[in-house]
């Protein structure tokens, strides 16, 4: 059982869920606007990904070459519309309301996200986990650019490198990632259970086609994509809050962080 002093330290250092909680709260309060805009952002990508999954399931990956070309502008569209959502989160935090900034910084934002997308794709291709840092950083490009006083590469690289080495940013991202992996595994396990036991024995149904569908890799890939969409939205919203949280620590405006520092120095 921790001592009162240790409990206080744990509480003040416990920022595992702070920014994620704020991100969820933002989505909850602005759901009427955020969810349709996100659906608009991800619709082209979703259609293409589902078509690719269908072609893979039918063992026709050759038609995917055409879809891959279309996926590139769909990705750029998704980044642009996600930046609009992230701009709204920035406005909610800073109280500023300047629509001209995104128009001026949209092109640098797309350019900055390209190398990170290369890292994600080849990282997933070569070793799945090596693409994860790039996925974390790509959401932080928009708040870094929108908050910067000028379009300067140091205003992008420094926050991204800062986020890469920050344990706080990693805690938030990994908490979210593990949560969604658990949700995905739970869903896949539930569907497998239904296919193998519940439907045949409980419902008395022995439809082979239904069982094949529930066991198919296409269904699992499609389910993984839908779970990923929820994770994607929550991380893009929470990343703005994580960014400003890191900024307050950097500028010393985070009172709790400063008090902890003073306590450690005194000790």
């Amino acid at each position, binding site marked *: 059982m921790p001592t009162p002093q240790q409990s206080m330290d744990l509480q003040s250092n416990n920022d595992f869920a702070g920014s994620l909680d704020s991100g969820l709260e933002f989505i909850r309060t602005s759901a009427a606007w955020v969810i349709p805009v996100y659906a608009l952002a991800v619709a082209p990508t979703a259609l293409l990904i589902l078509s690719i999954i269908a072609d893979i399931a039918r063992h026709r*990956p050759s038609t995917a070459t055409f879809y891959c070309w279309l996926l590139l502008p769909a990705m750029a569209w998704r980044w642009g519309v996600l930046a609009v959502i992230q701009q709204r989160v920035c406005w909610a935090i800073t109280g500023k309301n300047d629509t001209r900034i995104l128009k001026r910084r949209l092109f*640098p934002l797309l350019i900055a996200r390209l190398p990170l997308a290369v890292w994600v794709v080849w990282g997933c291709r070569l070793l799945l986990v090596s693409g994860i840092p790039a996925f974390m950083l790509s959401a932080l490009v928009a708040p870094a650019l929108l908050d910067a006083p000028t379009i300067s*590469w140091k205003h992008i690289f420094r926050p991204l490198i800062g986020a890469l080495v920050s344990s706080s940013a990693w805690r938030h991202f990994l908490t979210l990632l593990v949560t969604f992996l658990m949700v995905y595994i739970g869903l896949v396990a539930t569907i497998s259970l239904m296919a193998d036991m519940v439907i045949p024995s409980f419902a008395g149904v022995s439809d082979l086609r239904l069982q094949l569908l529930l066991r198919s890799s296409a269904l699992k890939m499609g389910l993984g994509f839908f779970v990923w969409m929820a994770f994607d939205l929550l991380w893009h919203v929470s990343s703005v809050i994580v960014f400003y949280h890191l900024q307050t620590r950097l500028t010393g405006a985070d009172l709790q962080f400063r008090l902890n520092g003073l306590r450690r120095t005194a000790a």
Partner: protein
Amino acid sequence: MALKKTFCQNHPDRPAIGVCVITGQPICEECSTRYEGVNYSREGLRILQARRAQQNKIHWWPDRIWLVLATLLSPLCVLLIYLGLLALIFELGLRS
């Protein structure tokens, strides 16, 4: 010992509310402008503006060069993304 009252450098009959952080001169409420949470006199603001313009002038060109370079490299990034997606899809197709 009585405290000495300071008066504004522009208005000798008005008491100063503070000191400009750039010029160090006492200023009254009317002469003071609050910018980014700090009080400046008119002269101090002008000096601050000149300094920032000088800084921006010195540092603008590396950012422009980086933006041009990144734009020129972007087709290569697009091609790499396309090839990576193709490889991923064919690998998933072989495994399924």
